[in-house]
C-alpha cells in the first residue's frame, strides 16, 4: 500500500517545471543585452523548464506570493558589462523543500558552464549565486516538522480514544463505572480532555526536540496553540467513532492504523499537497489532518496568521462533528 502511494506521488508529481526569469540587463534602447539574451535562449533550449519571462524590476516577493513561484532566475543589471570586466553573477532563487530543486540547480549550472566555455576564459567568469526562498531558509526538515507535530497529535488522539474505550469496555471497568452516577458524557469528555492534554504535551516535545536537534526555524504562535487544541479535540472524537466498531483490544491497534496511516500519507505530512495527484488533493480536503498540517505550517513557518485561523476553524468543525457523532454512537448502559 505504501509502495502504491509513493509510486503514485512520484510518478504523477509535476506542476510542470516553471522557471520565472527576470532579465534586468537592458540596454538604453530597451532591448536586452546580447549576452543575457543568449543565456536565456540557451536555458530555454534545454527544454527542461517552462521559461516564463517577467518584466524587469517587478517585485519578486509579490511574484512568489501571487503566482506561487518556486523558481526564479534573475539576471542583474550590468550583466554583460560585468562579464566583459571578468566577473558577473546570476541569481537563482528557489524553494529548497521541493524535490525538483536539485535538478534545477544542476541544469542552470551546466548552462552557465557552457556560457563560460564560450567566453573561453580560463577562470569561470559567470558564477551562480543561489538564494533560498520562502521565509528565507525553508528546508525539507522545516517543512517536515509541522507534519510530525500533526502526526503526533493525530496518533495520540486516535489511538488514545480507541484503546481507552476498548480496554475499559473489555476489562470491565466501564461496567463498574456505569453503575455509578457517572454519565456517558462526563466519561467521554474526561477521556477527550485527557487525550487533549497528552496531545499538547506530545506536540510540545516534538517542537522542542526539533528545535534543539535540527535547529528548526519555526516560530510557534498563539494560533499554533489554537490548531493544536482543535486537533487535540478532533482526533479523540474521530477515535471514539472508530472505537465503536472495534470488538476487542487485539483489533484496536489494527483499527487505529487503518485510520491513521492513510491520513498520514494523504494529508501533506511528508510532501506538499500541491505536488500530489489531483485525486489525492481532493481526498485530502476531507481529512482533518490536512488542515492541522496546513494550519501548523501557516502559523509557525510561513507567517500566515489569517490562513492559519481559517484552518483552525475547519479543524474545530471537524472536532465538533466527530465528538457529537462519537458520543451518540458510544454505548454506555444497555438503555443508552
Amino acid at each position: 500500500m505504501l509502495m502504491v502511494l509513493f509510486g503514485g506521488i512520484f510518478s504523477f508529481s509535476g506542476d510542470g517545471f516553471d522557471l520565472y526569469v527576470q532579465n534586468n540587463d537592458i540596454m538604453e534602447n530597451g532591448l536586452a543585452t546580447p549576452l543575457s539574451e543568449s543565456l536565456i535562449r540557451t536555458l530555454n533550449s534545454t527544454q527542461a523548464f517552462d521559461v516564463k519571462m517577467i518584466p524587469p524590476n517587478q517585485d519578486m516577493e509579490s511574484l512568489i506570493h501571487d503566482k506561487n513561484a518556486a523558481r526564479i532566475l534573475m539576471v542583474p543589471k550590468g550583466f554583460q558589462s560585468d562579464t566583459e570586466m571578468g566577473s558577473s553573477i546570476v541569481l537563482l532563487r528557489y524553494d529548497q523543500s521541493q524535490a525538483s530543486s536539485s535538478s534545477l540547480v544542476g541544469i542552470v549550472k551546466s548552462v552557465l558552464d557552457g556560457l563560460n566555455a564560450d567566453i573561453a576564459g580560463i577562470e569561470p567568469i559567470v558564477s551562480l549565486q543561489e538564494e533560498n526562498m520562502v521565509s528565507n531558509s525553508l528546508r525539507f526538515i522545516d517543512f517536515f516538522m509541522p507534519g510530525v507535530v500533526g502526526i503526533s497529535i493525530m496518533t495520540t488522539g486516535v489511538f488514545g480514544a480507541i484503546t481507552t474505550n476498548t480496554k475499559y469496555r473489555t476489562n470491565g471497568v466501564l461496567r463498574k463505572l456505569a453503575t455509578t452516577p457517572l454519565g456517558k458524557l462526563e466519561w467521554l469528555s474526561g477521556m477527550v480532555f485527557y487525550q487533549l492534554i497528552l496531545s499538547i504535551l506530545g506536540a510540545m516535545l516534538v517542537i522542542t526536540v526539533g528545535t534543539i536537534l535540527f535547529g528548526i526555524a519555526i516560530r510557534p504562535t498563539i494560533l499554533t496553540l489554537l490548531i493544536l487544541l482543535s486537533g487535540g479535540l478532533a482526533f479523540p472524537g474521530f477515535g471514539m467513532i472508530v472505537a465503536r466498531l472495534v470488538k476487542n483490544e487485539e483489533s484496536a491497534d489494527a483499527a487505529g492504523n487503518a485510520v491513521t496511516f492513510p491520513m498520514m500519507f494523504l494529508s501533506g505530512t511528508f510532501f506538499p499537497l500541491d505536488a500530489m495527484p489531483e485525486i489525492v488533493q481532493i481526498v485530502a480536503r476531507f481529512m482533518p489532518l490536512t488542515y492541522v498540517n496546513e494550519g501548523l505550517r501557516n502559523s509557525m513557518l510561513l507567517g500566515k496568521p489569517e490562513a492559519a485561523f481559517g484552518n483552525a476553524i475547519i479543524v474545530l468543525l471537524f472536532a465538533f462533528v466527530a465528538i457529537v457523532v462519537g458520543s451518540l454512537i458510544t454505548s454506555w448502559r444497555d438503555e443508552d
Partner: protein
Amino acid sequence: MPAATVVEVQNLVKRYGDVVAVDNISLKVKKGKILSFLGPNGAGKTTTVEILECLRSPSSGIATVLGLDVSNSSDQQKIRQRIGVLPQSFNTFGLLTVKENIEYFISMFGFRKQTDADSLIRLVDLEDKKDAHYRTLSGGLKQRVGIAIALVNDPEVIFLDEPTSGLDPKARRGVWSVINGLRDSGKTVFLTTHYMEEAEALADSVIIINNGKIVAEGPSSELIVIHGGARSIVLKEPGDSIVKAIRAWNSNTWFDGNSIKITMNDGSDVAKIVDLAQEYEFDLSNMDITKPNLEDVFLRLTGRTITEDGGTR
C-alpha cells in the same frame, strides 16, 4: 413491625431476541437481610441484577429498588446514588493504588454522604495493601477492593454479582467474612452465586433460579427440610462393579464420576451398603453419611447439580 421491602420484582421478563433470559420472576428482599440468588451460569442471575442496577432495561414486568422504578430514568439516577454494586468480573484501574481507586469512586458520588477511604479499607481488611497497585493484588484481594468500592456511597442495598467466582477456598472465606460484616452493619445484600455452600453460609434466604425461572425460595434450612430429602450415604471412588450393583438395588442414586450418593429410606440401607461393600471389596473408610444440603435441594428440583465453574451436570 415487619422489615421494609428494599427490592421488589414482579413478573419480570427479559428477552434477548428469541432467548428468554429471565422468565416471569417475582421476588422481594427485606431490609437488612442477605438474599442469595443461586443458580448455574446462564440461569438469569446477572441479567436480573443488572436490571436492578439500571444497567439493562426489562422487557416487561416491574422492578423497584428502594421504592424507585428501574424503568424510570429520573428514578434510575436516584437508584444509582443509593446502591452499591460489585459487578460480575469486577475490575478497576490497575495503575492506581487500592486507596486511590477507592478515593476515585468516592469522588464520583459528589456531595452525597461519603465514607472515608481509610475506614472502608479497614472494613475489608486491606490496611497493609492500601498503597499497592490494584493490578498487583491477588483475585481475592481484588474482590475485597471491589466490595470497598461498592460501599463508597454508604449504600442502602448492595448487589454482589458472583463475588467469589474463581477464587480459591481460602480467598473465598476472606470475602465471606467481609460480606458477613456487611450484615452486621445492617446493610441489605443481594448476592448472586453458583456456589451452594456460599449461599448456605451467608444468606438469610435463598432464591434458586434455573433457566430464567425461580424454582424455590426461602431460608436455606427450610429449603433443605422441604426439598432436601433424607440423609444420604456417599461412597467415594467406588469401583464400576459396586456402582452397577447399587444402581440395580436402589434407583434413588446419583453418581458424578467420583462418588455415588444414595438417598436413605431407613437405617437398613446402611446395612445393605455395608454388605455390598464387602462383596465388591470397597474400602468402608471411604463411606460417609451426609445430611441433605442445598446441593440436594437443587438436585431434587432440577435433576442436575451445579459444577465448580458454574455449569450444570
